């Protein structure tokens, strides 16, 4: 057992004669060793590739879509309510037959996140009741303009990929908003595709959506099919 000295670190053992003699030069050993190692410095963003973050990194937000392309956001503002930095601004709107953006009656008409305020805590993600708002791992958020740092709905909305049909378009025939939330709608139906073809023939999501609709032949649960649970005696007046 070495006796304790007056050093700041009580665990440090007092050096012997050799140790004391070599100590002033020992640090150079590290220097010498790194002469022969590869440098770890990332020349980001000037050189090299985008350094990948961890998969759960809290990056920029994304507003997701249902598989048929309708938006998941219902404009409930719970994200704005949960936000400790007051970074989110939402205004809701009513869906109409001609302008159906999300499943059900209500959609997020205005959606803004101010990334000068956002602290990436993820409370908004936890608050979102429809899984509309999630976070990507994208972190390249910088601008010389303050206004550019307020991301609006068109920037946050996920692209209509994988056979999705860009909103607005009607909900899948016979489906309710519950069906959407329960994942019983797996992609656009041919009626939805036709609806968009009639109104926006140049919509860029049409070709893939058409293909997806042809492949799936409508929603997974066709209208009128029983819900997963065995049905109970239907209450009169309880029509859907």
């Amino acid at each position, binding site marked *: 057992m070495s006796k304790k000295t007056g050093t700041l670190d009580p665990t440090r053992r007092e050096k012997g004669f050799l140790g004391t003699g070599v100590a002033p030069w020992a640090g150079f050993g590290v220097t010498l060793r790194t002469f022969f190692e590869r440098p770890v410095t990332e020349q980001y963003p000037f050189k090299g590739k985008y350094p990948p973050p961890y998969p759960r990194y809290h990056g920029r937000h994304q507003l997701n879509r249902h598989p048929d392309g309708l938006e998941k956001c219902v404009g*409930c503002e719970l994200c704005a*309510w949960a936000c400790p930095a007051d970074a989110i601004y939402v*205004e*809701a709107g009513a869906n109409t037959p001609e302008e159906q953006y999300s499943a059900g*009656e*209500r959609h997020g008409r205005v959606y803004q996140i101010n990334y000068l305020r956002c602290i990436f805590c993820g409370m908004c993600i936890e608050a979102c009741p429809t899984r509309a708002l999630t976070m990507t791992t994208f972190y390249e958020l910088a601008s010389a303009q303050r206004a550019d740092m307020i991301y609006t709905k068109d920037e946050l909305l996920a692209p209509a990929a994988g056979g999705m049909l860009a909103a607005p378009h009607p909900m899948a025939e016979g489906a309710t908003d519950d069906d959407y939330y329960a994942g019983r709608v797996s992609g656009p139906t041919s009626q939805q595709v036709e609806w968009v073809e009639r109104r926006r023939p140049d919509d860029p999501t049409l070709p893939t959506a058409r293909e997806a609709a042809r492949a799936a032949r409508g929603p997974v649960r066709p209208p009128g099919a029983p*819900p997963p649970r065995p*049905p109970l005696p239907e209450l009169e007046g*309880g029509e*859907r």
Partner: protein
Amino acid sequence: MSAEMVTCVIDGIELEVEKNTLIIRAAEQAGIMIPRFCDHPLLKPVAACRQCLVDVASPAGPEGKLRAFPKPQPACAIAVTPGMVVNTQLTSAAARTAQEQVAELILINHPLDCPICDKGGECPLQNQAISTGRPISRFNDKKNTFPKPLQLTPQILLDRERCVLCQRCTRFAAQIPGDPFIALQKRGANQQIGRFDAATLGYAPSCGEAVDEAVDDSVTPAGEPFAGYFAGNVIQICPVGALTSAAYRFRARPFDLVSTASVAEHDSNCSTVRVDCRRGAVLRRMAGDDPNMGQEWITDKDRFAFRWQVAADRLRRPQVRVDGALQPVSWPVAIAAAAAILREAQAGTGVGVLPGGRLTLEDAFAYAEFARRVLGTDNVDFRARASSPEEAQFLAHHVAATGVGVTCDELVAAPAVLFAGFDPEDEGGVLFLRLRAAGTKVFSLAPFASRAIKRLGGRTIPLAPGAEAQFLGELAESAESAESAESAVVESAAAGARPAADVVELREALRAGGVIVVGERLATRPGAYAAALRAAQSTGARLVWIPRRAGERAAVEAGLLPGLLVGGRTADAVERDAALRLFGRERPPAGGMDLPRMLAAAAVGDLDALLIGGLEIADLPDPALAQVALRRTKVVALQVRGDELAEWADVVLPVAPPQEKTGTYINWEGRLRPFPQVLTSTAPSDARVLQAITDKLGYAVHFARVGKVHEVLEDLGAPEGRPAPPNRPAAAASPLAAGEAVLSSWRQLVDDAAGVAEEPYLTASSIAARARLAPATAEALGVTTGDVVTVSTARGAISLPLVVEAGMVEDVVHLPLKSPGSWVHATLGAADGSVVRLTASPAGPAKEEDE
């Protein structure tokens, strides 16, 4: 009045409450909140939701031993009895369990769609599910669903899934306004709220005409049954999100809103409202609690009509006419232009001041000061409606500087109320609800029983417009001539087919402390104000003037009438030192013109300039003359909005609407109703603009400070004497020629007013305009309900579908004054009481009536 008190114990707290206090109210006094849905202090208890179950024990038997009820009891329906011991959810496990289970039951069919529900965040169901509900529901089956939303009225949406069947809305509709537009339907698990809908009810027309005899058959412009002027209140009292507002749908969350307690600007009740805004825009208005006036109710106009203040034709920049067209200019340029016009006119034939009837006391005072001290004119008249010099005399004599007169509480507690030239609902707003709630006995001098009178269970003394003065005079005479029942009024009542018993009853009720309410429509009846004053004096009844607009009482107090100065002083009776102090001269300007004379003078070039504020041409009794006058003279306009200004204004000075300024209204009781500025704004008040012109003109007169008028009024105190009452005799009605009728007309509560601009849901829920005739008159004309009749004058004609009104006075036709399709002033150039021609629809084949 000291009420009988009883002592009880709630959660171990001993307290003394008034007898007949409900347990739930007594608990509130002890600071204990019992959860509830159906309970509402202004509605009768129903114990429908069962959420307020508590453990109750009360002394029973000869020894008065405390005996507990076998089961928890609803606290909202049981009154406290002496010695009662109540244990709420805070102290009783049984009560707690009962409440939890009721909450669980209520939530069984609730869709839990709080994220898309407008009530989310301010929802009693949300709050109480958390405070008293079970953490987990045991219900694991399919919920009852309904298509949603159901449009109850264009502005009220019903989501039946969310409803907990507390019946607050149906009880409100039946108990408070008596507009049964909503009811419980079906039974058991299928029970739901709704309005008559054949599809929902499975109603087949073949099973007989089951439509019960409605109080009225008023319909909306779309032809649906009218749901009343107070229907919007059900949105506010709904404890869940079942009833929502179409105009506010999905607009905001409670935490987005900044609320300001304010005062509604639409009628002279000046109801208390809460204004909710988000990011500089008002999104909704809710009723505030005003126990002295509307209690917790407001009219739909007060609730829904607020976007007029930011309508498309809102004026944002000062404008000056350059080369025949209005050009936007800076404020200093516009003020200088206004000052130049007024200075020139002052040197010429003079200036007329028409400030309109919607001003705050502060702004009204500014106009009065500006007119008398700066312009040195007495040409000032706030009445942008049919009026008369007699009315000005009456206001100076009876209204100005009288302070708080008959209050709403006193009015509804009176043994009887007589309405003359006043409809308690269309022109009275929430006053109607108070009268109905109190069950006040009402009499109305009107050509027919209006919706309001029918629902108040009131008596109508059928009189053609213009006959009120004579009737009131006879009433006074009969009251003066001692106890004689065989008096003139009874005789003439018998002759005029009026129920004589009603008239005698009216006279006796007035003697017992009744109230006579006179409205602005009496202005067009020569001698009516004099007769009303006499009737009040001889019967000992109190007399109260209830104007329609919010700013009229304040304008009277500020002296915006020819010959009437601030604080009820008159130009000829003002004390010398007061005149010096107030006007800087010994005699204030006098001999001014009223609005019709000013317009007539301006039309022929005898008035060089008009200073107008908040004036709508179509509201004036003769819009055609006003158009001529305004085009002929120079016009300086202080307005909030106005597209029509482009035609004739020379200087436009945009002023702040009520929500962008602070001020004080005076309601018809005489109570000051101050309100704060709701929105941040750079728009100046009328007073500030007038002050800027004053400064530009070089006068050392200061009136724009908000507190100034209150200091002046306090300094002046009550006037010593009152000016003479009007004493014009009643005019005999001129005989009607064949095919002629007397026009009866007043404004419906929601009509084509400037105040309902850009409120499509509200206007879609209003009453469609209809013409009304007595059965005999209709028969003589060969028309019946549903046919179109045409009312015409030399100037124009109005054709409307007819409603034959039983019990209506013959040879009288009633039209709404400014409803869509019935702009009486503008189209006919006629007013209430005018003689018009009446024909059956000219569209009808060979139905031309022209005797």
